[in-house]
């Protein structure tokens, strides 16, 4: 993938070969500005690769559609719609069937986040963390084949971040959605992911792929286990400038 620049194309990603299984959560980790967002935007169909291709269930990706919903790093909840209207957006425009808000992944997320009583409120009345959960609920409600999350906990303070992460973890463990997330926080990635992809270099390539074998359901206390600490240290060392894989 190259970005056009005034002094010629700037290669961003190179030789990125990645396959994601149904029900798998893949977390792409790497330093800021390495190309994680670009990778997700290519998968979403918002950018076209200069070389190569993306396929979802064997079909090539040419443009965005509701089979690959993306949750963005920057706030993207629609402030003029209520929480309910936001969540039902994909069905309202005819891109998905009407979501079940009483059960399933969306229902569970609404319950865990305390959003059920706020369905008719505008997002402007919610906290930043709740708004982020509305975006995740909206993404899940579109029933995508794959949910893409670009730093889904970006700009949240440490306590809210932990709480939102726990809620997402419960949804992942109960409903096994297929997800590709990006993060620069290795601990967060190890909590959520089934596989960790380490993106490094310029242009960025996949330097390592780590299967995350910690059993589910996972609690925050796995962070104190020796295996967790060892794997985390190994990945952080490879992410450090001049790190070796």
């Amino acid at each position, binding site marked *: 993938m190259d970005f056009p620049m005034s002094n010629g194309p700037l290669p961003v990603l190179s030789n990125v070969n990645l396959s994601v299984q149904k029900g798998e959560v893949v977390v792409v980790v790497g330093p800021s500005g390495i190309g994680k967002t670009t990778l997700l935007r290519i998968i*979403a169909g918002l950018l076209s690769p200069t070389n190569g291709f993306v396929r979802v269930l064997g079909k090539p990706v040419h443009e965005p559609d509701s089979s690959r919903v*993306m949750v963005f790093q920057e706030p993207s909840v629609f*402030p*003029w719609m209520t929480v309910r209207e936001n969540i039902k957006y994909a069905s309202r425009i*005819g891109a998905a069937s009407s979501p079940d808000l009483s059960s399933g992944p969306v229902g569970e997320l609404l319950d865990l986040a305390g959003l059920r009583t706020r369905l008719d409120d505008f997002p402007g009345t919610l906290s930043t963390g709740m708004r982020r959960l509305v975006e995740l609920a909206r993404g899940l409600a579109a029933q995508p084949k794959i949910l893409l999350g670009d730093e889904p906990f970006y700009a949240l303070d440490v306590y809210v971040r932990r709480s939102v992460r726990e809620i997402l973890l419960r949804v992942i463990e109960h409903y096994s959605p297929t997800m590709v997330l990006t993060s620069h926080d290795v601990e967060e990635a190890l909590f959520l992911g089934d596989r960790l992809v380490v993106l490094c270099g310029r242009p960025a390539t996949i330097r390592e792929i780590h299967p995350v074998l910690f059993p589910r359901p996972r609690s925050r206390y796995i962070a104190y286990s020796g295996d967790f600490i060892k794997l985390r240290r190994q990945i952080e060392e490879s992410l450090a400038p001049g790190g070796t894989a």
Partner: protein
Amino acid sequence: MRNSGGTGKIYPRVNWVLGFTAMLLVVVAWVILTEGGIVKPLYLPGPRDIIRAISDVAEELPIHIFVTLIRTLVGYGLGVSLGIGVGLLMGYSKVTKASLHGIIEAWRPIPPIALIPFFLLWFGFSFFGRILLVTLGVALIMVVATYEAMQNVPAQLSEAAKTLGARRQQVLWTVQWPAIRPELRGSLRVSLALSISLVIASEFLGAQTGLGYLINVSKVTFSTHVILLAVILLGIISGSLDYLLRCLLKRLTPWCAISEQS
């Protein structure tokens, strides 16, 4: 978190008292200056002169008010519809933007009042000519405001809609149009004031009715008390229309009222 309403209850009351006091001071100063004989009635008519003016033009006044109001509302309504429509098209289609941008930028700095002689030549003293003048003046403001507002819509909102399955037209109607509404509020209010000014200016020339016509004929006979009555009525009309517009805009952007409170 919902606003508890504590500060919200105090400040509007203080604001209202301050606004009312300032207005009262202006009225008191006017009464002292005119009724105290400090300023001659020809230069600044007093409250009793205004009452006299009402009785002088009582029969024809309702028709002048009605005509000015209709010209303003029709011209403004058409101008807003045309301006927002063209602005949305320019933001939506690069071809439309490339075609119209140059014309609009060249036309925009020209004060619409400067075109009145041409409008009189082309359309005579017709209702259509006066309305067209207002429509064009308002439309030019609204085209630019709409197009600029569309450029300011955060890209991730449109992109989020696209990945949720929205087609281009759906992105326009379900994301970009509601997203720009709060930004258009100021321009809509400015355009309303401009439309009243343009109607009055157009009524100065060749009209047989309207408050602008009333001001113009009263000027000839130095009936400054009638002129001041027309000016006061224009202020009341302008203020009332602006109030109604603000109520409408509040209904069209209910989410903004909530974020403004909090």
